[in-house]
């Protein structure tokens, strides 16, 4: 680029117009991120919902005559595992469990953590000290170790995995929300709302929450990815879904013994985790850009 100055007004206008067009393009690109993410997640949800229409095999039906068939074998699109179970149908039915974790575990912690953070940030004082002390206590533990400890106490099952996530992962939301609330409550519109005689709950939920929710919503997308990976990890360690349940992590765990002879048994469920994880990440990114653009 040369360092000449734009001299004529028409040149300046042209520059401004080019800049504006560039900005519009980047808005479209941001939307594209969100749309691609939503389409990928939509495909995953439809696939697991209509699993019986997409496969004729039961995910747990064993077929001792055709074990370890490679992908693209006629009749077995993604091959079979060591018991001759169809990998494609196991992926579809297993996805039900993993997506349920993504939504079920994340939504509860999102709502609970947001509520606690909002109360701590707005009320302040002792309430804040106690709640945030609790949050710090949870943060002091390594997260996965804590989840494993809770499951070890309750016994390994999918429901107990939900419980363990509910107990431990609201803390991030509480911390984010508290920080946002502390900033928002100093804003003039909050003072104005209080000057109108609005009660605490009304000020918190109708005035502060709409202005601060975007951060936790964006974080929940990242958290959903984290929860899927956590579920897979717990399944891998044998603490989540129990055999013969076709959870993706459990499938990877089963497949690792055959890594050299039948690589697809571990790789395919791994790719499924990546697919859903990427879709949530794209949605989170797209939402972040969109909501941030809205603030401007």
């Amino acid at each position: 680029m040369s360092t000449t100055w734009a001299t004529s007004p028409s040149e300046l206008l042209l520059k401004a117009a080019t800049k504006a067009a560039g900005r519009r393009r980047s808005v479209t690109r941001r939307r594209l991120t969100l749309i691609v993410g939503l389409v990928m997640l939509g495909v995953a949800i439809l696939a697991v919902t209509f699993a019986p229409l997409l496969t004729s095999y039961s995910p747990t039906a064993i077929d001792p005559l055709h074990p370890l068939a490679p992908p693209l074998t006629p009749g077995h699109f993604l091959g079979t595992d060591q018991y001759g179970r169809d990998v494609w149908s196991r992926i579809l039915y297993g996805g039900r469990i993993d997506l349920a974790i993504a939504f079920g575990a994340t939504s509860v912690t999102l709502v609970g953590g947001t509520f606690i953070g909002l109360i701590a940030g707005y009320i302040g004082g002792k309430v804040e000290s106690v709640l945030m002390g609790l949050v710090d206590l949870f943060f002091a533990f390594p997260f996965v170790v804590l989840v494993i400890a809770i499951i070890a106490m309750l016994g390994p099952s999918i429901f107990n995995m939900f419980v363990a996530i509910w107990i431990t992962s609201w803390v991030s939301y509480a911390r984010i929300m508290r920080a946002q609330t502390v900033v928002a409550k100093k804003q003039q519109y909050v003072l104005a709302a209080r000057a109108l005689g609005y009660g605490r709950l009304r000020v918190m939920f109708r005035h502060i929450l709409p202005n601060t929710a975007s951060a936790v919503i964006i974080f929940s997308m990242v958290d959903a990815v984290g929860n899927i990976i956590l579920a897979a990890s717990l399944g891998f360690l044998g603490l989540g879904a129990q055999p013969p349940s076709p959870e993706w992590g459990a499938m990877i765990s089963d497949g690792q013994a055959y890594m050299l002879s039948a690589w697809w048994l571990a790789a395919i469920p791994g790719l499924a985790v990546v697919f859903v994880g990427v879709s949530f990440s794209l949605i989170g990114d797209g939402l972040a850009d969109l909501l941030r653009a809205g603030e401007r």
Partner: protein
Amino acid sequence: MTTPGPAPAAPGAPLLTVTDLHSYLATDQGVVRAVDGVSLTVHEAEILGIVGESGCGKTVTCRTIMGLMPASTLHSSGEVIYHPHGERSILSAKQAEWEALRGSQLAMIFQDPMTALNPVRTIGDQLLEAVTAHAKLSRAEAQEKAVSLLERVGIPAPVRRMRDYPFQFSGGMLQRALIAIALASSPRLLLADEPTTSLDVIIQDQILSLLLELQQDTGMSMILVSHDLAVITEVCDRIVVMYAGQIVEQGVTADIITEPKHPYTQALLDALPQAGQHGELRSIRGSPPSLIDVPSGCRFAPRCRYVVDECRSWDTELLDTGEREHAARCWRHQEIGRSEEAWQGSDSA
């Protein structure tokens, strides 16, 4: 203890009495004595003006009256009696009591209309919330009342504008909307904290006349806070002049502007630009004292052009100047009132 309806406003009866109000704020530098012994009375159907430089405690006074003390408040004492609510100080009121008082009895509008509305909700949504906050109304009634309020404050096409968000309004329109929201429950006392400071002069004038009009229509009382003496003298019945957390002079508007008894008020009046006056504008030398280490004696002494040694050791008090409740915090107010030429050492800055 009873909350009256639209009681017949007997002009002249005291509505709000503030007695010896102190409010100290904690900061990193030390304790700021933001409000230091303020006493004032607002009568029914009266507009009281509070004037003073930035940082002299005007806003903290208003916020304390509303029970909305800044979070850094270390200590506040004194009495605020809102007479329709009984003869007990409302400073000690409980949360629920405050919520019933605010909005329906006492309302406040703020300095910067751009930030006083929630940016993510429509004007109509926020107005409807205010309309229904202290009264049980059906959806249709509330809608009707909201529209008529917007019409009353001069917002054209109110039904359409209710769907707009705050960023789609201009500053003047936002202040009008905020006034509509503040008046939604027909308060009896409106505290206007520098309502026109962030607006340009034309809009400023429109908003002031609107406030004056609304005050006359409804018979409510008003406290108008400003650092602009011109604004205050235009609309107020009585004026309180504040300096460094204290009231330095108070009285009827006409008395204050024709016969100011305190050197600070005189200096403020001198600083007003006059039509046909040429040359440099006059200003008050120096700046207000820090409210952390408050000097003993008269707080205005360092900037006063009439200062003598005794001023620095004088135990300040508000002195009655004899006529129509006019009072000034200057021990030589009788001499000052007379003639400027009588004074030695007056500077011509």
